[in-house]
């Protein structure tokens, strides 16, 4: 049994106030340099919701623009006027902050999120009008509290403030007096991940055309950890998201692996479906508040807007082979092993070429590669280069070193087999998976026959190992279901012919 990709959902949440209050670049700066010029200048560099929507890479993320169309527009894209202004796209949506704060409250089942009653009254109708929010979610919205209660929670009880247009409109309370794993800061981070995940998963279900009841298993692949002091990363984001999304028949679990986690999770989910363990599995993730404004200092220094002002979420629905949707080919898996080595060449061998060699394939047999699909607008001004392009160059250079390709072909290879990056720098979010919505469509339309998705992770950040990590998988066209062979005996054929002749003769006699 093959696993197929039935659909994908992509969500962005514009959270400018969280850039100021929750991004670690800013929270760190407030501790080490509270009077810094950067913190003073920052608010003037924040984009409005309309500006964040009318931005080419964001429009690509939700599916209103293809990567090829984006690539045809010269970067930097933040200097271009984008004529696309819809907050909804065929893959998902860009949610404004006010709707998101209400959704965070709906996602909180421990009375930790409080919102100003006037704020709730002002924006409740907007959330209800959101095309993926149903009555079950709206029923979770509370009426709100008086401003004094919010101020008391923030000023006296260590709650994390929720701001909108620089005004305190709510708070996330701590879930424990002493346990730092349940602090207001951690609860805020986790609830934001959970809520943005809900948006992505609801779009994925809609796009895949399945019923919520069909989903049997959900795997979350974000980079947050939920748990308490006795089990710091206990989990389970996946099941908590499935609850809010109304997936009554689903269980779930979390898979972690830094930026490589989505690729690891896609392979696990496809394997579960292929083995027949579950019929429909969703791979999903919400966004990360800590990374908001991560490169903000460089953006402000260069007079740019703060481009890291959105949380990202994605979800992919995998199901049993339907003879139509693209297959996740579990025979062509790349994996970086403990013994692979960490040099770029060894990494590329492990992730790309080992898998191809095992299957007798050449690098040019893969129509499209997808590595780290970071939006270069964000990283280039911060000295981070263009990781998307860098990856394709590395694959090409490795192919040249192996003698599989001429050096002169490098540029053409990068153009034809690569793609520009458009995803926000949310760690796990840009790691290959943003391409899946487009890859599914391009395979279905016959534009391409396959794509290799590579997820890479920097494990050293957790200080447990210095090893690099990554895995890869190939999505390919579905050959279609073979006609079930019907055993027709010679006798049956003879009797059918005899009957036809008899009918023919009878027809002649009647004339």
């Amino acid at each position, binding site marked *: 049994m093959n696993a197929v990709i039935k659909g994908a959902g992509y969500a962005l949440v514009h959270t400018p106030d969280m850039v100021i209050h929750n991004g670690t670049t800013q929270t*760190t*700066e407030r501790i*080490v*340099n509270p009077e*810094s010029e950067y913190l003073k200048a920052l608010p003037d560099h924040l984009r409005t919701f309309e500006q964040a929507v009318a931005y080419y890479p964001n429009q690509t993320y939700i599916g209103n623009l293809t990567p090829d169309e984006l690539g045809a527009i010269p970067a930097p894209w933040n200097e271009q006027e984008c004529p696309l202004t819809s907050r909804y796209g065929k893959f998902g949506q860009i949610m404004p902050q006010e709707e998101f704060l209400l959704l965070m409250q709906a996602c909180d089942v421990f009375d930790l999120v409080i919102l100003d009653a006037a704020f709730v009254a002002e924006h409740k109708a907007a959330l209800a009008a959101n095309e993926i929010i149903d009555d079950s979610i709206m029923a979770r919205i509370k009426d709100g509290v008086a401003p004094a209660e919010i101020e008391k929670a923030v000023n006296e009880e260590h709650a994390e403030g929720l701001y909108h247009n620089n005004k305190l409109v709510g708070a996330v309370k701590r879930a424990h007096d002493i346990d730092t794993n349940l602090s207001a800061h951690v609860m805020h981070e986790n609830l934001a991940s959970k809520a943005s995940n809900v948006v992505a998963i609801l779009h994925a279900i809609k796009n895949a055309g399945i019923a919520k009841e069909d989903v049997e298993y959900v795997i979350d692949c974000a980079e947050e950890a939920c748990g308490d002091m006795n089990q710091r990363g206990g989990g389970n984001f996946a099941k908590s998201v499935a609850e809010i999304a109304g997936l009554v028949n689903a269980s779930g679990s979390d898979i972690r692996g830094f930026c490589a986690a989505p690729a690891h999770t896609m392979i696990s989910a496809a394997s579960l479906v292929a083995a027949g363990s579950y019929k429909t599995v969703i791979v999903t993730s919400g966004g990360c508040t800590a990374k908001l404004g991560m490169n903000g*200092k460089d953006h402000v220094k260069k007079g740019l807007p703060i481009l890291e002002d959105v949380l990202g979420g994605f979800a992919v629905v995998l199901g049993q082979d339907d003879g139509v949707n693209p297959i996740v080919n579990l025979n062509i898996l790349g994996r970086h092993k403990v013994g692979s080595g960490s*040099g*770029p*060449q060894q990494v*590329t061998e492990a992730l790309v070429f080992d898998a191809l060699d095992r299957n007798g394939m050449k690098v040019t047999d893969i129509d499209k590669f997808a590595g780290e699909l970071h939006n270069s607008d964000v990283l280039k001004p911060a*000295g*981070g*280069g263009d*990781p998307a392009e*860098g990856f394709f*160059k*590395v694959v090409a*250079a*490795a192919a*040249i*070193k192996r003698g599989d390709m001429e*050096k002169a072909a*490098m540029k053409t290879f990068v153009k034809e087999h690569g793609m520009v990056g458009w995803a926000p720098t949310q760690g796990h979010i840009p790691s290959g998976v943003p391409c899946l919505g487009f890859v599914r469509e391009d395979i279905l339309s016959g534009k391409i026959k396959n794509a290799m998705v590579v997820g890479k992770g920097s494990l050293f950040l957790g*200080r447990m190992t210095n090893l690099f990590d990554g895995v890869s998988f190939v999505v390919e066209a579905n050959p279609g279901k073979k006609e079930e062979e019907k055993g027709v005996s010679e006798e049956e054929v003879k009797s059918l012919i005899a009957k036809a002749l008899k009918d023919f003769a009878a027809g002649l006699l009647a004339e």
Partner: protein
Amino acid sequence: MDLENQRRVKEFAEQYGPENVVVLLGAAEGEASGLAAETVTAGDPTYAGPLTGVSLGLTVYHVCEEEVKAEFDPAVYDEQVGMMEMVLDVDDIASEMQSIRDEYCKYLG
């Protein structure tokens, strides 16, 4: 530069003496190499890490620079760095590194 790496560079400079430490970079492009080089010579330009306001003036090179390449066994270099040499803008990286060394290095000839 990563705050933890800044701390380790600072500790090595204290332990072995700054004149005995060479920092070898592997950053993917010129500007990032320059920022890292500036951090271990003039101090952390982002004012965030342990090297803020600490001008170690260490000797610093990028692994793709000719001076460094000459120190390696060519076979090992080709195996470990050869591919990235093809991918990176080596000239841009080298000129960025040279300008930082000219300005801030305290221990070069």
